[in-house]
């Protein structure tokens, strides 16, 4: 008896000592694991710099995204031999624009060259970053709201409502929705707002499923009982108690949803169904330069690279976040 009591006592005092030494919540733990993941940190830094460049860049540049300069059409970012380039690619270069560094002539006026109308490619890429990133974040947020609403409703109310919402989600899952989005964009006009509403409206299904599952597993737990006993209404239970508890998986899903949505935006813009000229997005920049890719490859490569690196970073960050918030999953997917 005494032995057992002693053991229990030692354990509790040990426990409280640990707690006093280092307060570690779930979020604190997750943050520590995230910071240790080098790929995720690098990805995060890259995305943040891209966002800052997209916001600041077009404003401080001496060129605007729609300013055309017919004396500097199809100028490359760098060139080995100005004379030869002019003859082979049918481009008249102005030698003063180029500075020779180690045998290579770099374009000191337009760092990434110009497009077929003499517009500065760097500014157009940064301007395109605004559109691509904005569509990515906004569409993901739209889908998040729709998904959380329907998921929470189905999970909390249950019964008939749950059955109907689940059936709706299952039916929509079976639809080839990308074809609907293409059809919608093609027939209903190509506006920026329609773009993210269309994408957001079709990507909420998985969010709804995740939230529904979480809410169902939580709604009979003791702390919900306690809230109900203390007189909290349905709305209060849903918004103050249930939804905040689904936030972990939602954050992970959201961070991986953004690159997916950006990919869809790029896909639509590439097909000519996204933003319209003179505005640019990464997808439309590649599409515009597509026909002359054999002659002027830099117009395709730079926007393509910007898009790929951003998606790459977002995916790494999202993966890191998932590993940090749910270490059991690590390396499984």
């Amino acid at each position, binding site marked *: 008896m005494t032995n057992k009591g002693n053991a229990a006592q030692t354990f509790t005092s040990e426990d409280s000592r640990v707690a006093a030494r280092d307060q570690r919540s779930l979020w604190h733990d997750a943050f520590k694991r995230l910071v240790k993941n080098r790929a995720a940190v690098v990805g995060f830094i890259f995305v943040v710099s891209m966002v800052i460049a997209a916001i600041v860049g077009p404003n401080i540049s001496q060129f605007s995204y729609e300013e055309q300069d017919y004396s500097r059409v199809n100028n490359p970012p760098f060139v080995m031999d100005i004379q030869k380039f002019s003859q082979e690619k049918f481009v008249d270069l102005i030698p003063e624009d180029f500075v020779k560094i180690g045998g290579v002539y770099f374009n000191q006026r337009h760092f990434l060259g110009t497009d077929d109308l003499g517009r500065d490619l760097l500014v157009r890429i940064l301007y395109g970053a605004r559109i691509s990133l904005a569509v990515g974040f906004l569409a993901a947020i739209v889908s998040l709201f729709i998904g959380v609403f329907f998921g929470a409703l189905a999970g909390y109310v249950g019964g008939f409502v749950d059955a109907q919402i689940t059936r709706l989600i299952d039916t929509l899952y079976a*639809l*080839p929705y990308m074809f609907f989005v293409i059809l919608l964009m093609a*027939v209903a006009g190509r506006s920026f707002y329609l773009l993210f509403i269309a994408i957001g409206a079709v990507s909420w299904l998985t969010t709804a499923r995740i939230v529904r599952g979480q809410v169902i597993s939580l709604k009979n737990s003791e702390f919900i009982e306690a809230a109900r006993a203390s007189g909290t209404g349905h709305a209060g239970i849903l918004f103050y108690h249930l939804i905040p508890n689904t936030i972990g998986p939602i954050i992970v899903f959201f961070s991986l949803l953004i690159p997916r949505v950006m990919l869809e935006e790029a896909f639509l813009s*590439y097909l000519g169904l996204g933003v319209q000229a003179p505005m640019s997005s990464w997808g439309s920049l590649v599409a515009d330069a*597509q026909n002359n*890719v*054999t002659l002027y490859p830099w117009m395709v490569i730079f926007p393509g690279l910007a898009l790929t690196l951003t998606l790459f970073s*977002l*995916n790494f960050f999202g993966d890191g976040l998932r590993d940090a918030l749910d270490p059991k999953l690590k390396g499984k997917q």
Partner: protein
Amino acid sequence: MLKYILKRIGGGVVTLFIVITLSFFMMRLAPGGPFSKDRAYPPEILRNIEAKYHLDKPLLVQYGIYLERVIFHFDLGPSTRYADRSVNELIASGFEYSARIGLGALIFSVFVGLCAGLIAALNHNKFLDYFPMSISMIGVSMPDFVLANILMLVFALQLGWLPVAGIDSFSGYILPSATLGLIFASSIARLTRGGMLEILGQDFVRTARAKGLSQRTILWRHTLKGGLVPVVSYLGPAIASMMTGSLIVEKVFNIPGLGRFFVDSATNRDYTLAMGSVIVFAVLIIALNIFVDCVYGLLDPRVTYD
């Protein structure tokens, strides 16, 4: 099992009906029509043309006519854009190319993805694990049109091994199929690795090892089937996305496949051709999903159909 298949086919028919109905009304309710061009026809001619395509009747009647023709005659109607060619003909001509590219991409992605995933799983946490997985991360993140351009610039332009565009010969199919295949190979590799790692860590594998079975027997006889279940369930939606992806690949490599018809027809309000493309894509996707779900049960005995 038979009951399950019948039930799935019934569900597929319902889905197809929803697809047809939604896309029909979505197209019709949008402003503009197939004959509202810059150069307007005189009203009497326009009336004649519209009568020919039943466009003068009320919308619901048109919908009825369309459904009747599609369901009972498998006739997708005449194209309003390409005069005197039926949508069936146009789609058949484009489908030939899309199907070849899709098939090539499927074979390529499954082969490359499985190999990479198996190598990674068998060399867990070694160089041969990290290396293919890093590459697959690029494949997951890179949009197909960027990859297509890079492959084209390297293999067609710099090295001159393959044609830049066009599909006059077999070699013309390599780049489009490889582009499409590589994107999906990345996901397949990741799923294969995950599935295999999970199976290889289970007790029965340890028993098999303790029994003295060779690595090869363990791999082929005991683990491959179970480890590939996630890959199979991925393949249904993947094949569907390969078809949307082919829109892009066909544009980059200038191939007259289904994808080009689809986007152009939607923009030109060629109602019948756009509808026809959507229906063909939807039938393919639904059928493949049902097929994959049935195969799924054969691989994993724990899955029951009811």
